[in-house]
């Protein structure tokens, strides 16, 4: 089943597009990596897919009947979040709000879902800790857990390992791979090409021309060294 289908999309702020001619599909259980230089429009593409920005032209559809609000998103951390007084549990369960239409409070199902996604991302023991006192790696796992709480079908991850040390990075990749193996489709922006291509299936290469290829094709083209 095709979860999200992007056709001849042009993205950008204002009139001039940052990137154009983008077409790809994300199937159920897929793993797509988005690579490209700084400023090539990776984050912009992801925000457009999430409906945070309007596309300049082209279209994004959900052929499989998934709703646009059923995507889990892990974005780049904002200034506000750094000293925000919130417990891990409060943040994770806030991912369930897209299932709470018309309900002001969380029900048992929401609490179970939050517990399950904390379990899957290995942060159950951090449940009552304060977000601002966690390490960078732990914070990223909390945000991943929230994304997972919002969707068990498709996760969009914007540089989930930026600023993490090698151990935390490996742990993050292990969790993401595990989630993907269990059937969650993943779209991930990354600069860490070598490690992420080991777990990805297809690569979207952003730049003057936007190209979609398999990992094997990408490696062949770049001389087998990733970059």
């Amino acid at each position, binding site marked *: 089943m095709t979860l999200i289908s992007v056709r001849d999309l042009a993205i950008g702020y204002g009139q001039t597009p940052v990137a154009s001619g983008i077409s790809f599909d994300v199937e159920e259980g897929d793993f797509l990596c988005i690579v490209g230089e700084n400023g090539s429009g990776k984050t912009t593409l992801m925000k457009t897919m999430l409906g*945070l920005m309007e596309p300049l032209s082209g279209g994004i559809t959900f052929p499989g009947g998934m709703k646009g609000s059923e995507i889990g998103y892990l974005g780049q951390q904002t200034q506000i979040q750094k000293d925000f007084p919130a417990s891990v549990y409060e943040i994770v369960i806030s991912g369930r709000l897209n299932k709470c239409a018309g309900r002001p409070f969380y029900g048992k199902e929401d609490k179970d879902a939050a517990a399950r996604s904390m379990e899957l991302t290995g942060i159950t023991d951090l449940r009552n800790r304060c977000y601002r006192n966690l390490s960078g790696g732990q914070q990223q796992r909390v945000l991943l857990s929230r994304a997972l709480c919002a969707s068990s079908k498709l996760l969009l991850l914007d540089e989930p390992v930026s600023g993490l040390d090698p151990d935390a990075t490996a742990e993050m990749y292990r969790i993401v791979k595990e989630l993907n193996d269990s059937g969650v489709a993943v779209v991930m922006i990354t600069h860490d090409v070598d490690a992420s291509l080991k777990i990805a299936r297809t690569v979207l290469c952003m730049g003057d021309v936007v190209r979609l290829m398999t990992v094997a094709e990408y490696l062949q083209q770049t001389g087998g060294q990733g970059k």
Partner: protein
Amino acid sequence: MIDKLVMYLAYPFVRYALIVGVLVSLCSSLLGVTLVLRRYSFIGDGLSHVAFGTMAIATVLRLSNNMILVLPVTILGAILILKAGSRTRMQGDAILAVISVSALALGYLIMNVFAVSANISGDVCATLFGSTSILTLGQSEVWMCMGLSVVVIAVFIFMYNRLFSVTFDSDFAKATGQKPERYNMLIAILIAIVITLGMNLVGSLLITALVIFPALASMRLFGSFKAVTVSSVILSVVCAFAGMVLSIMIGTPVGSTIVAADLVMFLICCCIGGLRRGGR
């Protein structure tokens, strides 16, 4: 001491003042948490100056219940500040400053040009610092205040989870189908209501203190959104109550006594927070 307090409590206007004071401090501290976290602390300041300007017009027009005019205009001001902040190229805080000083200056100007009473500076001082007008509240004003407070509290409770999500990460909230703009509007309207109510209590210059002190103090002590919210409500109500009782007993101005109590509480919380962090 206690005798004196009991004696004062026998007067209905003292009881009214206490009720209004507690309600206003409760509502303002509820909203304070999200405002402080979003770096919106000063929206309260700007809006209170708008409210001051409108109050001046209401005085000139000799309206019996000035809330009828002040409330809608302040809500309008809140919406304007938000819209302007997100649309134009000017910085949000610059817009706030523009609106705030203009309203203050025009308000004072209007009061002077169309002087209603002989004691202008007394009137101005009363609107800026709250003075004793809280002790002259009529029954209808108290009812109005209670009604509006119930609205603010109910809306806050029903929107609590969504407000948290939008405050923590408005991009994520929008991506999962919330409407952050709508909640921003809601918060602006609620804060406009609270400020209009608070004008009587501490006046338009000091109202920001009621909004930010309890939230800032609680953030030093607690690490979850719920605990911070609950604690700022408790701290705020305690301070307002203590401040009002004190001011009645020793005859100090109500507004500044409450704010002084808030300040002391904030400093104490800073110390406790610092000690805890140091001890770890």
